[in-house]
C-alpha cells in the first residue's frame, strides 16, 4: 500500500449532510464527534465544505426540495469520494417510505457505497460503516487510475 493510500485511510474528511427527516441520526452522528466515541482519533475532521471532503455522510430520506442540492454537493466533491447512507431512512426510506414529499432512499439520487442501518443508528455502527468506507476509498482510486491509464 503506497504512502498516499495509507494517508487516505488515515485522514478521511467528512461532510455531514442532513436531507430532511427527524434529525435523530444527526444527533447520533454529532455524538460520534464527542469525547466518548471520538471519531477524530481516526483522523476524521468534519468540514462543512464538499470541496474539502472525502466521505459524505448522508442522513435522512431525501426530501424533494433537497434532491438538487444533494446532487450539487456530490458533484462538488473531488474524487475519490465515498457516500455513506447513515440510518434506515437514508438506506431505504425507513418510516417515510411512500410519503409524497420524499424521494425515498439516498441511492435514488446519488450512488451509495456503504449502508448503515438503524433507527437511530448507533454511534458504534457509524464508526463501523466509516471504517468500511475507508477501504472502499482506496479501491475506487485504484479503479479510477486504471481507467485513466486504459483510456490514455
Amino acid at each position, binding site marked *: 500500500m503506497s504512502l498516499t493510500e495509507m494517508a487516505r485511510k*488515515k485522514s478521511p474528511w467528512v461532510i455531514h449532510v442532513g436531507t430532511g427527516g427527524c434529525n435523530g441520526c444527526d444527533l447520533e452522528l454529532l455524538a460520534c464527534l464527542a469525547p466518548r466515541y471520538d471519531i477524530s482519533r481516526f483522523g476524521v475532521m468534519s468540514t462543512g465544505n464538499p470541496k474539502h471532503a472525502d466521505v459524505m455522510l448522508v442522513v435522512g430520506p431525501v426530501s424533494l426540495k433537497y434532491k438538487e442540492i444533494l446532487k450539487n454537493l456530490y458533484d462538488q466533491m473531488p474524487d475519490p469520494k465515498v457516500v455513506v447512507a447513515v440510518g434506515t431512512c437514508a438506506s431505504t426510506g425507513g418510516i417515510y417510505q411512500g410519503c409524497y414529499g420524499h424521494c425515498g432512499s439516498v441511492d435514488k439520487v446519488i450512488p451509495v457505497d456503504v449502508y448503515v442501518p438503524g433507527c437511530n443508528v448507533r454511534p458504534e455502527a457509524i464508526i463501523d460503516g466509516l471504517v468500511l468506507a475507508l477501504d472502499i476509498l482506496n479501491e475506487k482510486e485504484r479503479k479510477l487510475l486504471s481507467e485513466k491509464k486504459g483510456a490514455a
Partner: protein
Amino acid sequence: MMAEGMLDYAIPLIILILSPFVGGLLIGIDRKVTARIQNRAGPPIVQPFYDVLKLFGKEDKVVNKAYLVFGCAYLLTVILSLALLLFKYDLLITTFIFGLSFIFLVLAGYSTRSQFGYMGATRELMQMLAYEPILLFTVFLIRLVTGSFETDAIFKASQPLLFTLPLALLSIFVILPIKARKSPFDISEAHQEIAQGPETEYSGKYLGMLYIAHFFELIFVLWFVGLFYAKGFWLLPGWTMQALLMAVAYVFLIVVDNLTARLRVDQMFKQVFIIGMALLILNLAYILVTGRWIA
C-alpha cells in the same frame, strides 16, 4: 573562515527545510493535547502529514484560475519571508513581505467569487488591521532599542530584547492567536460561520499547499517570538533560550485556544487595540524615559 561562512548559510537552510515538518508536528501535538484536555483520544501527532498527503492524492475541483495562482503565491511568499527571517535579513522588510503573503491570501479569497470567500477575505483584512499595527510598532520599538532594523543587531545587542521590551512581548502574545488562527481570534476561518473563509474553494493539491503554508507560518510566528531572547543565559547557549521562549509561546497558544471561545470582530478590535496599544505605549514611554534608545 570558509567553514564559518558555510555554517552561516547551512544552519538557516537546514532550519528552513525542517520547518514544515516541525510545524506539522507542532500542529499535530496541539491537536493531541487539545483532545486529551477534552478527555478523548485524539488523532496521532503525525496527522497533519497524513492530511497533506491525502490532499495531494485528490483530483482538482476548481472555480477559476486566479485564486489558485494567488494560493501558490501565498505559499511561496511565506517560504520567502521565513527564509528572510532565518537568514537574518532586514526585519522591517521581512515583516512587510510576511504581510504581502496575507495580501495574496486576501486576493485569493476575493477572487473566488463565493460568499464565504468574500466574507472570509474581508474578515482576514480586518484581522490584518488588528495585528499589523502591533507588529509594526514592535518592530519600531526593536529598532529604537537595538539601533537598526537589521536582525543581526538583535543578536549583537548587549541585552536580550526581553529585558528592554517586556510589554512589547506581551502585546505580541495578545496577537499570537490571530496569526496562528486559533481561538479567540480565529475569525477569518470561523469554521461554523463561514465554511473555511478564504480557503473554501480550494481542493486537492492546492489545499495541500495552503496547509503547508500554515506550517511555515506557525514557525515564522514562533521564531519571531524567539528573537526576544537571543542571548545565552548562564550556561545555556543562545539557541536554547530561543527554543524555550518559542515553547512558552506555543503552550500559551494551546492553553488560550482551549480556554476561550471565538470573539466577534469588534470585540477583537477593542481588546487588541486597547490592551496591545496600551502595553506598547507604556513600553515606549519606558524606554524613552530611561534613555535606553539609540537614535
